[in-house]
């Protein structure tokens, strides 16, 4: 399987009473009270250093993502980070996994197609092109896109992106939301016919259909862990089967929070407060921000109103041991982590493309590197062979990296491309 290091680029030093004093970590947190640009510059550099450390340590990919006006993740342009990572990892076998630039917030959306093509060129064909719908907070509340148009705009932009990468001739796009008379992308990606596409989702049934119909890798970017995702991911696999596609595990991606220590007790001592910081402060927002009226289509709205299943647990009342027990975080000794990932994520969800979040909330730089190092040395090697015996091909991974990355690639990292 393929295992990538994911990063949110959080504010690591929010005040202790943040969740009591402020309405939300997203959309409305006051910058001038909470942040300092010099310090934030340090966060960005730590983030890049941590992802480059992961690349050298043997992870298969490094992931960045896009959020706006958000203190738990403020890479408004993941492609700026991706460009640094692409250049610095040239010559290695590490994929640049952009999870990714959000189409409905990019106008015109071919900007994403262009930047991804640049990243593919710079990285020598190592790009994984995440094409997320974007959250309601980012797209509707921060970027002003009408909730009722959000999904339709995304779908139109998605089709435009795929066509812009592949068209042999200049074409005109006369869409409902986007009109471009002369689409003729420069540059085009190295990977043909286009870079592998991952579509992150949060369990909505219409996204399952969309992912399978478009033959992309569906990624569940969850902060609630694999146990809570089981029913949802089974729903995805049911759609895959119903539509007659092979149940290739590489069709699925999953994000899991992971913390590795010498022992289970050592992990608790080291990581407990950072895990609690993440769930108590970083995920602090009013529930109605998640879905402003019109953001869900009518069918989903009715289904959600009638069922209580998707009503999220209040994480503010939980502590470290709860998060570990319930599987929000897989934490403990290397053996514990390895066994739980195999059981809960790999087997439980049938996931071939695993993303792990190893810098969690307030976790400082040194501890992040320690967590990454332990994971890379003591956990990752025993996971890498998962799914090998099935003979599955990871069509959703850059072709030139598919067979590689069994050995450490440290020596190559940082070397320039010829």
């Amino acid at each position: 399987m393929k295992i990538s290091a994911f990063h949110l680029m959080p504010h690591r030093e929010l005040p202790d009473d943040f969740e009591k004093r402020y309405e939300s970590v997203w959309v409305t947190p006051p910058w001038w009270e909470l942040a300092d640009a010099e310090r934030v510059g340090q966060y960005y550099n730590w983030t890049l250093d941590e992802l480059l450390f992961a690349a050298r340590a043997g992870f298969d990919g490094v992931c960045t993502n896009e959020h706006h006006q958000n203190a738990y993740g403020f890479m408004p342009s993941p492609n700026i980070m991706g460009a640094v990572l692409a250049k610095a990892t040239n010559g290695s076998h590490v994929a640049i996994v952009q999870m990714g630039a959000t189409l409905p917030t990019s106008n015109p959306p071919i900007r994403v197609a262009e930047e991804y093509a640049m990243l593919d060129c710079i990285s020598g064909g190592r790009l994984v092109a995440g094409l997320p719908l974007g959250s309601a907070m980012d797209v509707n509340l921060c970027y002003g896109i009408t909730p009722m148009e959000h999904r339709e705009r995304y779908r139109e932009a998605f089709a435009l992106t795929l066509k812009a990468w592949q068209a042999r001739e200049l074409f005109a796009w006369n869409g409902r939301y986007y009109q471009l008379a002369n689409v003729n992308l420069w540059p085009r990606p190295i990977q043909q016919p286009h870079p592998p596409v991952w579509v992150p989702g949060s369990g909505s049934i219409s996204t399952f259909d969309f992912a399978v119909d478009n033959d992309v890798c569906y990624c569940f970017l969850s902060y609630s862990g694999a146990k809570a995702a089981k029913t949802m991911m089974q729903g995805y696999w049911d759609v895959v089967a119903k539509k007659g596609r092979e149940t290739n595990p590489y069709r699925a991606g999953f994000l899991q929070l992971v913390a590795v220590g010498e022992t289970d007790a050592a992990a608790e001592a080291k990581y407990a407060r950072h895990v609690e910081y993440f769930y108590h402060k970083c995920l602090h927002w009013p529930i109605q921000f998640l879905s402003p009226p019109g953001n869900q289509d009518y069918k989903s709205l009715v289904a959600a109103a009638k069922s209580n299943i998707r009503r999220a647990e209040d994480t503010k009342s939980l502590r470290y041991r709860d998060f570990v027990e319930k599987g929000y975080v897989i934490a403990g000794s290397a053996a514990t982590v390895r066994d739980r990932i195999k059981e809960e994520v790999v087997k439980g969800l049938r996931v071939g493309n695993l993303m792990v979040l190893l810098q969690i909330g307030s976790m400082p730089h040194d501890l992040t590197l320690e967590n990454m190092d332990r994971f890379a040395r003591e956990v990752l090697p025993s996971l890498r062979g998962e799914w090998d015996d099935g003979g599955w091909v990871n069509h959703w991974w850059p072709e030139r990296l598919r067979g590689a990355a069994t050995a450490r690639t440290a020596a190559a990292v940082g070397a320039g491309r010829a």
Partner: protein
Amino acid sequence: MSERTIAVWDGKVRIRVRSSGAGPALVFLHGPWGLTWDPFLDELAKSFTVLAPEHPGTTPETPDDVHQLDNLWDLVLCYDELFQALGLESAALVGHAFGGMLACELAAAYPSRVRRLALIAPLGFWRDADRVVNWMMLDPARLPDYVFRDPKSEAARRMFGTGDDPDAATMARVRLAWAMGATGKFIWPIPDKGLKKRIHRVAAPTLLIWGKEDRLVPPVYADEFTRRIAGARVQTVDGAGHVPHLERPDVVARMLKEFVAE
């Protein structure tokens, strides 16, 4: 009360129109929370033939019709077609909030269709110093506090459907959320969609009605209308918030009767 559904927009948008009463035609355009036939409309029906259309998408049987429309211009044209189908040459037009903004747009687009224009706490303008509260971003449990001066009133219960039957309450939540989405589609994220460029075309005598304790659209917005529409007057309603016609139906109905009869 009777109802009929009229298909406009080449048959693709079905608009249900509720009506009651006798006398001159009065069209009521509802706000962002959908249409509920209430004592206010009953009161008006004593003097007028009240015609109350449901905005596209807000009728529970045809939620997806709203997707046929891209913008406010499309919506205004739909209402022109509706008025044509209803045989309304010239009617008194009353609108609340979103419906007030729409009524004003219609009066600007088709001055001859509107004999009298009454706007109850209408949207349509934006002042940085007096921001309109975005009701679509509020905690649904707190929404009644912003809309009604007395959120526990019978009128509030009718609008927000906080009854005892859980299934009915669920469907009321759906109806409310979708009504906000379907009307919000035309005004997101700021309810200023260029009325200021068009409002000079309004020719009808105009009355503005505002609840004195409106916590959603501050009463100062009345100035934006009165300074642009010649002869427009403002009447404020004591003891009312954002929905004075529901909070003080007798008072507002009387204001309207007097205004339309002038």
